């Protein structure tokens, strides 16, 4: 019996060894088994054999075969590629079959991984088309909240927001829609850097060429004049107050005549200068002229099915920017939301998040890293905090029936629970709307820092390849005595460093709950 076991174990050795020494190895085993009888000697024998197998089997597989010695020398001498046959027998049929099965399995596994990339990021670069990843268009659907910090992020936010909003609005269509934003948002970073408006739906090849030709051109007097004339035409055509448009046009021309513009030879500086000149006459913070390094498209078109699919995929990957939903000690709900995503994609995620916090005694919204998003999602989240429709101020919309929260939400129990919002100077745009409105409605306590101050809104009009204007075409009614957050930000109720906001909030909530 034990001899049979050892004979089987010998099969672990490569065939060339078995053929040469298999029989002798077995013979040696027989000799030892005959001489070493008894329990302990047998145990010792098997221990020896297994140790021996563990060391000598790998050694045999890594052994340099005599046939290979000198092979490399021969090849060098001949200068021609040559093959050496190490085994003079065909592999066994079973071995061939096993090889086929393993090869098919490996090839199949790789192709499945390539087509069904799923969350395996490592395979992503292999499957995406290079022209898509390189264009501004494709980056437009990345949630800015998840970008790196700093000024670059401000610009990225502008990209996202203007692209998603603009693309959902066919040119000339200003009718509010129930599911999609109706205005183009032109946002700026807190540092007042000019936004780089991406070309949504641009003909990418043309845009790329233009960038090379015109990208860094300096502006001469004629070029500046063309921009000024373009701005005046756009103002007169679209600005809500015609008399004010006339006044601003006059001012722009007067500045040009008196040589005030001569020093502005670069696009961003010239755009900022014209914006200042217009606002000197008419302090409308939603009106501005912007410069784009990338050429602006002739017509803004809607996002392609591909873009939407990408957006969905990104949102799915990022859990719709709902970074954390948890219940802290003392039954305090905590929701860290980094972006107000499109409800048409993320409504189920938002609903599930709010449902999981339905039974908390107080709720903390962490918007310290929230860079804005879709006004619809802002309103959707706010609806949970009221038991009846509340007027919901949105500087980007005309006053319509849409401006009311859709409260009460069936089954919701959060309408009477204390609400706390954590803010930082990075809290921006749509997130600031959430803060401002809830603060004005005395529904939330803001803890942290004054927010970024991004409320720019308007419809974007193209002047030429690099200049465009954001012009407010709506006249929203702000029912509150306090001006909205545009450029000033929303000040917190409890001012602490953003990093300490959560700790402060938890203490406040606990003391409030303890008093009950």
């Amino acid at each position: 019996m034990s001899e049979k076991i050892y004979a089987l174990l010998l099969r672990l050795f490569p065939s060339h060894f078995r053929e040469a020494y298999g029989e002798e190895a077995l013979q040696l085993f027989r000799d030892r088994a005959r001489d070493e009888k008894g329990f302990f000697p047998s145990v010792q024998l098997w221990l020896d054999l297994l140790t021996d197998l563990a060391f000598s089997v790998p050694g045999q597989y890594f052994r340099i075969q005599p046939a290979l010695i000198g092979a490399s020398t021969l090849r060098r001498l001949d200068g021609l590629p040559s093959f050496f046959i190490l085994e003079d027998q065909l592999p066994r049929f079973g071995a061939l079959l096993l090889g086929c099965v393993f090869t098919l399995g490996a090839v199949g596994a790789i192709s499945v991984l390539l087509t069904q990339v799923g969350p395996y990021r490592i395979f992503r670069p292999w499957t995406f088309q290079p022209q898509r990843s390189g264009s501004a268009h494709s980056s437009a659907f990345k949630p800015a909240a998840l970008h790196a910090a700093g000024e670059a992020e401000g610009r990225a936010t502008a990209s996202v927001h203007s692209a998603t909003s603009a693309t959902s609005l066919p040119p000339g269509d200003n009718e509010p829609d129930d599911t999609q934003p109706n205005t183009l948002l032109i946002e700026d970073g807190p540092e007042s850097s000019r936004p780089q408006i991406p070309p949504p739906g641009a003909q990418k090849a043309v845009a790329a060429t233009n960038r090379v030709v015109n990208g860094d051109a300096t502006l001469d007097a004629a070029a500046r004049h063309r921009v000024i004339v373009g701005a005046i035409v756009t103002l007169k055509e679209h600005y809500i107050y015609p008399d004010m448009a006339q006044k601003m046009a006059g001012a722009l021309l007067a500045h040009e005549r008196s040589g005030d513009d001569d020093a502005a030879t670069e696009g961003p500086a010239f755009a900022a200068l014209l914006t200042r000149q217009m606002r000197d006459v008419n302090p409308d913070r939603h009106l501005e002229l912007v410069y784009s390094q990338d050429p602006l498209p002739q017509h803004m078109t809607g996002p392609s099915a591909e873009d939407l699919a990408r957006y969905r995929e990104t949102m799915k990957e990022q859990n719709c920017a709902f970074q954390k939903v948890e219940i802290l000690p003392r039954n305090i709900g905590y929701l860290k939301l980094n972006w107000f995503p499109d409800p048409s994609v993320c409504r189920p995620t938002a609903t599930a998040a709010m449902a999981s916090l339905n039974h908390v005694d107080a709720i903390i919204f962490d918007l310290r890293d929230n860079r804005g998003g879709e006004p619809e999602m802002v309103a959707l989240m706010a609806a949970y905090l009221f038991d009846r429709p509340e007027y919901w101020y949105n500087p980007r919309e005309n006053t319509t029936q849409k401006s009311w929260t859709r409260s009460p939400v069936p089954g919701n129990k959060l309408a009477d629970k204390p609400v706390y919002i954590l803010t930082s100077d990075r809290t921006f745009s749509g997130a600031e709307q959430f803060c401002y409105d809830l603060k004005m409605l005395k529904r939330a306590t803001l803890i942290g820092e004054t927010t970024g101050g991004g409320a720019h809104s308007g419809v974007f009009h193209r002047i030429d390849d690099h200049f465009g204007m954001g012009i407010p075409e709506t006249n929203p009614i702000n029912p509150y005595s306090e001006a909205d957050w545009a450029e000033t930000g929303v000040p917190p109720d409890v001012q602490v460093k953003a990093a300490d906001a959560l700790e402060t909030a938890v203490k406040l909530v606990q003391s409030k709950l303890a008093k009950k």
Partner: protein
Amino acid sequence: MPKRKLDPLPSAAFQILLSLAGEDLHGYGIMRQVAEQTDGRMRLGPGTLYSSIQTLLEGKFIEEVDRREDARLGEERRRYYRLTSAGRKLARSEAERLADLLRPARAKKILRGDYV
């Protein structure tokens, strides 16, 4: 022959060479002789034994001699191995190398004994 396999000489190969210094032996005989000359510290398993024999054969340090019967082990005909002059030389140079290693140890009185 892959020279690097025996440089340095593995202790199993050295012991096999030593075991064959006195007489020709078959595999089991080598195993027992090695166990004896190392006071049972080295018990060569079949894999290690025949791997080493294979290497030594390839290097022509040992050679096979005609099969014959071992009266003590019964009727089976067995392959016997014999030390070649090259093998004897290799064993001697290895023994000298080891002696050289031990000499300073003796001088520093770390190792006692009169055989080095």
